């Protein structure tokens, strides 16, 4: 990177967001459009004024749409505009303004609409199940991991290193949920006590239910512009002063889990651009990412560049993080209080800095005279840090806006108790894979079959690496050719006592599973793997405990990580194995080349959204409904809850227009010979695209016709009464 401070200045000039709900009635695109309409209104612009759009949303597994960014184009206001989607897992929400900043600071565009969205609720039975596929498919997923396990493991290490008690960490949850009482988008704001957190159910020790942010549906949008444009507006802009984003290795068991160096480095990048040399003194407001309460503290250490952790602990215990304190932290209420629709949460924090630094935060306004703030997000496999530093321009502005007094009812977003309370669509995609093991993992997994843990050794840096790899990621991809059998003993670096399964379901009563990161003897420092621990009294497990692998009988071993049943404590007097033994790696030929089977074990229940509910309700009665946009005087088919041309929210009930379902004309059709899985159909079917007089758009569905070859453009058809909700039930027949 260069050593330059920031040249082209980029300002935030407007923000919008939906309420954050556990389940929203609106579809993903509808939520997004609502946030966009508000952001444009706040900036005093229309969609025609916008040069380009960038969008952040985290895993597609939540929304349940492959290439979700493509699906969100219309809702993001990006029709016929330059549009790109970016993501870095949980760090996405702060990566979004950074990507938007690139669009404007590069000089290519004068402004950029930055949009974020997450709809987690479609993923059933619980969105947490989507997290199993964040782990390595071959070496980690077979263990049944989910996000809460990795958080608990990290929290345990954090507490061990910095000497925090659970009660001290719980103060963060109390603070955030209280602050969120004043936030209009808040999902779980409440007055709670440290005792409430401590008494909430233990999910995966040390993590308890009230240590965790919720799963959420929500969207947030901001408008960025260049300095010239920002200064032409009547209200005070807030400028992005510095940005940083850093992504660490995916081999997370090889990393210091107590101190997030990647966040510290990202912050250092941002500080260099912003000219900050003493962050604790030069930053007025902190919005660290707080998906779990300890995470806020974990991140704050890095934001203050303080690996000792003493400063943050002092600030926490002295009450300095309160809104009227010296270092207000999460004045918004954060993910713990406002909610956590992943990507939208990060941008909500950017919006909070914009509100605070332009004096629009109303009841949430911090007491001190704040000129500069920092927002940060984090994610992936404990691996990414994204940081933005923002400042008001000169003197603290005093500005009352719509945002100063907004209440929950002023924000869009309709909460649902159950998806099944509204029209909905079920889908269980059959997503199966077979992952090539390749050069290094073939030898590594062969080791498990032999009852051995295998590493590979880099001659350049001297690291013994687990799992074995064919190149060294820290030595300019230098080839690694030396493989070793390592002792199957090691040391517990951190652990969790878990009562939940990978899909967030509770383990049977009395059942508990211990996951631990184990530094393997003979491998490098901090070079570990994750596995289960058993044959141990949970009260006696501790960091530093010596353990040994317990293997399945040879006849049952197949060459995967479950060939090791678990690790158990080394017994008194029991000695560890000898030093590493160099071996010949497995030679690849058609019999040894193997792939590891996998699947995405997820199902979805989608709400039909505001527009889909109206459309399918009417179609069940044999009626066809469109939606009128008064701004452009267009009637859209199918029904829609927003106009993608004008980017204004529409009401499919009030703005409904009836269309004669018998007046359709085929403008496109195709005879299809395969089903959705690519299997040949017994009888070809016809897909038709049908236009109706006086409307913009068409309806897509199946054409019920005896002879598929008779389907043709220009054919008149009528829409039949739908038997259920969903596109598969949209059926035309030739007009009588």
């Amino acid at each position, binding site marked *: 990177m260069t050593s330059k401070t920031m040249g082209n200045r980029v300002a935030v000039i407007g923000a919008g967001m939906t309420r954050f709900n556990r389940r929203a009635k609106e579809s993903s695109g509808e939520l997004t459009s609502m946030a966009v309409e508000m952001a444009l209104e706040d900036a005093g612009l229309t969609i025609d004024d916008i040069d380009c759009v960038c969008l952040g949303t985290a895993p597609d597994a939540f929304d349940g749409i492959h290439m979700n960014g493509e699906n969100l184009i219309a809702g993001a206001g990006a029709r016929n505009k330059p549009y790109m989607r970016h993501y870095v897992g949980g760090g996405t929400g702060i990566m979004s303004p950074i990507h938007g900043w690139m669009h404007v600071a590069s000089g290519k565009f004068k402004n950029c609409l930055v949009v974020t969205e997450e709809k987690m609720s479609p993923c059933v039975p619980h969105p947490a199940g989507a997290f199993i596929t964040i782990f390595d498919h071959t070496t980690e997923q077979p263990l049944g991991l989910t996000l809460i396990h990795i958080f608990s493991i990290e929290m345990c290490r954090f507490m061990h290193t910095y000497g925090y008690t659970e009660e001290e960490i719980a103060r963060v949850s109390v603070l955030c949920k209280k602050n969120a009482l004043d936030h209009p988008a808040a999902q779980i704001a409440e007055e709670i006590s440290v005792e409430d957190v401590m008494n909430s159910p233990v999910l995966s020790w040390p993590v308890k239910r009230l240590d965790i942010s919720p799963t959420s549906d929500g969207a947030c949008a901001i408008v960025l512009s260049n300095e010239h444009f920002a200064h032409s507006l009547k209200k005070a802009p807030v400028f992005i002063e510095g940005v940083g984003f850093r992504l660490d290795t995916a081999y997370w068991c090889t990393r210091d889990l107590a101190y997030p160096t990647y966040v510290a480095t990202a912050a250092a990048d941002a500080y260099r651009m912003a000219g900050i040399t003493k962050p604790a003194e030069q930053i007025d407001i902190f919005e660290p990412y707080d998906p779990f309460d300890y995470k806020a503290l974990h991140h704050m250490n890095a934001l203050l560049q303080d690996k000792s952790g003493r400063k943050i602990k002092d600030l926490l215990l002295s009450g300095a993080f309160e809104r009227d304190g010296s270092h207000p932290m999460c004045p918004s209420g954060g993910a713990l209080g406002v909610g956590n629709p992943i990507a939208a949460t990060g941008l909500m924090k950017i919006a909070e800095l914009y509100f605070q630094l332009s004096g629009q935060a109303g009841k949430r306004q911090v007491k001190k005279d704040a000129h500069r703030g920092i927002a940060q997000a984090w994610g992936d496999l404990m691996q990414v840090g994204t940081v933005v530093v923002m400042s008001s321009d000169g003197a603290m502005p005093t500005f009352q806006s719509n945002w100063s007094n907004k209440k929950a009812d002023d924000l869009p977003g309709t909460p649902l108790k159950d998806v099944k309370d509204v029209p909905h669509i079920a889908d269980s995609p059959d997503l199966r894979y077979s992952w090539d093991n390749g050069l290094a993992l073939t030898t590594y997994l062969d080791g498990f079959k032999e009852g051995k843990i295998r590493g590979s050794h880099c001659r350049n840096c001297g690291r013994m690496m687990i799992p074995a790899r064919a190149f060294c990621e820290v030595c300019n991809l230098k080839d690694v050719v030396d493989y070793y059998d390592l002792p199957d003993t090691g040391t517990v670096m951190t652990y969790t006592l878990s009562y939940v399964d990978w899909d967030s379901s509770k383990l049977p009563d009395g059942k508990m599973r211990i996951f631990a990161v184990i530094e393997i003897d003979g491998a490098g420092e901090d070079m570990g793997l994750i596995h289960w621990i058993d044959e141990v009294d949970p009260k006696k497990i501790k960091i530093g405990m010596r353990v040994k692998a317990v293997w399945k009988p040879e006849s049952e071993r197949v060459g995967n990580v479950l060939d090791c049943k678990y690790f158990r404590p080394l017994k008194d007097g029991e000695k560890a194995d000898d030093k590493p033994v160099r071996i010949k790696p497995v030679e690849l030929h058609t019999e040894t080349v193997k792939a590891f089977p996998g699947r995405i074990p997820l199902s979805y229940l989608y709400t039909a959204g505001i527009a889909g509910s109206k459309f399918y309700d009417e179609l069940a009665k044999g009626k066809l409904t469109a939606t009128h946009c008064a701004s452009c005087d267009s009637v859209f088919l199918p029904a829609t809850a927003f106009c993608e041309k004008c980017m204004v929210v529409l009401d499919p009930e009030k703005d409904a227009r009836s269309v004669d379902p018998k007046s359709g004309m085929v403008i496109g059709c195709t005879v299809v*010979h395969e089903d959705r899985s690519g299997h040949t159909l017994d009888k070809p079917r016809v897909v038709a695209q049908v236009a109706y007089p006086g409307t913009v758009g068409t309806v897509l569905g199946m054409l019920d016709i005896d002879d598929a070859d008779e389907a043709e453009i220009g054919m008149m058809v009528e829409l039949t009464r739908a038997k259920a909700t969903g596109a598969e039930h949209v059926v035309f027949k030739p007009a009588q």
Partner: protein
Amino acid sequence: MNIAIMGVGFCGSFPASGGLSYRELIARAAAMAYADAGIEAEQLDGAVSVEEDFVSGYSIADEYVPDQLGVQRKSVYTICGDFLHGVCSAAMQINTGQFKLLVVEAYSKASNILTKDELLHFSYDPIWNRLGVTPNYLAGIEMQQFMECSGYGPQDVAEVVVKNKTCGVGNAFAPYGNNINAQDVLLARQVAAPVTEQMIARPADGAVVVVLGATDVALETARNPVFLSGTGWCSGNSVIERRDHAVSEGTIIASQMAYKEAGVKSPAEDIDAFYVSDLFAHRQLMHLDALGFAGDSLARVNPDGGSLAVGDLFEANGGARLVDAVNMLRGEAGSRQIEGARRVVVQGWRGLPTDSCAVVVLDSERRTS
């Protein structure tokens, strides 16, 4: 715009690549690109990867990017798009003045995805467009409406397949290059009429890595830099009920952006070679129309054989074209070299159900506008 392509690496294309994990496939392409650019991984400021979760089989697939590029703990993020979208983003990033040297990466392990049609079906809107039949239905409607409006016929579309697959015979990177005639294409098994199986690019494995640098760095370091003169990207209308399927509006707008930036006034005359997405054969013609190069000789189009010959590399498709374009501008394209090629256009399309496209203009020599 003061950006140069300093080095390229392409490990592929293979119908299957058992024996190399995705990490090893990418590391191989990265090593090629870094050697070509005259750099070591440690000199890079960061990376832009281009990936989709369900193609990789991971949620938040960006996690698994840094190691095999040698850029752990650097400024790395992931774009959803064609490879060329990643190039466009990296170019903006360098032009902020805060970054000098970036790598763009995408890969395909298509052979590891056992249920590709299910996956594509899963990309359609769950409320409006999952019809329970082959997700290629949209290609059938597109090809029909394109022919209706453009005057092209099935024979013209078949000739695209013939030409591209024949070009692929001379390309060592093209496992699907072969000698085929138009009747073979037209009489092939129908998938979504009028689209036949032969009009659809077949999946393939491969990794593409490209090093981008600020021009001053490139001129100091790279053995043979190629210059990025214009970038553009656009997604048209994502609502397929309200999209004009006879044209690629995304390509039209993206090319207008790129041409304006690069000073291209008359594409058919100014451009020596066009690389365009041909994931479906009719899309090649549609994209050429949108780029302002219609009805002309196919000789200057996809000299590498395109995706029909090289294979569908998912997010890496535009990257494979870009690598060939760079070799072309360097005069290193071997038997498919177009003599005197100095300026080329590369266009990428994301595939169904999108009209998301990106366009870049490349020059063999630095131009000052």
